[in-house]
């Protein structure tokens, strides 16, 4: 639909990432949903790739420290940015600090193929700007309540991949995984959903496979 009678229909096809720059994938989601643990798992699972990480934790260096301590990535491949108390602003409204961090990493590692940008913990409306990331993963967890997918919000409904995390906790917190999965598929209109537990599968195989498929699409596209 066009709202401008003088204009042609807008182009619905997303532009592929600019040639010669690494693919950027955002990982967002509420506080404590397991974003950093997922990023650490991805770093291990994708260790064969040239990758780097930008963290946006509200306490800026916390997540970077977690990743450094976990020893999953050379510290030179981790950049932390300050978000001025507004994690959603830094990934959506004013992506300056994150662009600077991505560019710094790309300059430092010219062969870089993938940059994972982890947002600070935020609410269900926080999504990454398409000017910052090519694809985004939204992470919610079963302990946050099994109504979260039904509530929707741009993160849950529009992210390229929704991860329902910590499924091993479902029996302990009385969360119904069938309800969560069913609601998630219903509000997402066909976009993919992964249910995972990093306790059961520490390598996050389904998410890692999804990321590799995005990379392959760039290479062949």
């Amino acid at each position, binding site marked *: 639909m066009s709202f401008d009678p003088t204009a042609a229909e807008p182009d619905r096809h997303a532009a592929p990432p600019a040639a010669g720059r690494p693919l950027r994938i955002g990982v967002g989601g509420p506080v404590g949903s397991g974003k950093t643990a997922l990023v650490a798992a991805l770093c291990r699972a994708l260790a064969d790739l040239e990758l780097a990480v930008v963290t946006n934790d509200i306490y800026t260096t916390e997540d970077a420290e977690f990743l450094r301590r976990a020893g999953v990535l050379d510290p030179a491949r981790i950049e932390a*940015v300050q978000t001025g108390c507004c994690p959603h602003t*830094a990934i959506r409204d004013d992506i300056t*600090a994150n662009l600077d961090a991505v560019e710094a990493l790309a300059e430092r590692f010219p062969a870089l193929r993938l940059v994972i940008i982890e947002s600070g913990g935020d609410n269900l409306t926080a999504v990454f700007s398409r000017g910052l990331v090519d694809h985004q993963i939204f992470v919610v967890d079963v302990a946050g309540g099994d109504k979260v997918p039904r509530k929707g919000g741009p993160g849950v409904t529009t992210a390229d991949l929704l991860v329902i995390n910590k499924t091993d906790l479902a029996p302990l917190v009385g969360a119904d995984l069938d309800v969560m999965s069913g609601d998630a598929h219903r509000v997402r209109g066909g976009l993919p959903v992964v249910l995972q537990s990093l306790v059961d599968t520490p390598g996050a195989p389904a998410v890692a496979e999804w990321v590799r498929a995005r990379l392959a699409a760039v290479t062949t596209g």
Partner: protein
Amino acid sequence: MSVLALMLADSRFPGGGHAHSGGLEEAAARGLVRTEADLPAFLSGRLRTAGVLAAVFAAAAAHSAAGRVDNWSTLDEELDARTPSSAQRSASRAQGRATARAAAAMAVPSVDNVCGSTLRVLLAATPRPHHAIVLGAVIASPPDAALVAAYLSVSGPASASVRLLGLDPLRVNGSLAALEPLLRSVAADAAASAALDPAALPAPGAPALDLLAEEHDRHHREEVRLFAS
């Protein structure tokens, strides 16, 4: 004032300003600013020092842009020499580069015709230009550029105080509005000095703000800080 100048002064302009507190975070961490009552003194102090310096160089850069004078390297060096804190130089250059990036993406005739080429010449001379110089190069009107630079020197810390200390946004906004006479006079003085030889431009100093900026940078490496400066 041009729409472009209004956009550059808008706190929603995507030039990275939201992550800079202009020393307010360090001042708050030290208990120097606690309540709405403490804010006016901080803001007017910043405006009379860092704000004057930014306004002076924004006006001088606007004068160069309007007259197509390529003295960008000289202006850059002169502003560097007037910014003794390394942390403040970094913060200024980070915002300058981001503002240039955002301005270059504004593919409208006013940008392309008036300042597109200026911006290219500026970036060729100084790839990471100071914020005030980019403002002047883009706005190209000394009084407007000076007013925008002066305003931004206080609007950023004011917004940071709301986010860091939970101050009443309405009262904070009132404190900003109360600065209008001072903002006007700072901008007028800066515009009056715009045509001076860069070496002769005013050089106001704020040792306390310099020290706060350096301390902020040091603490940032040791513990949690939410703002880049």
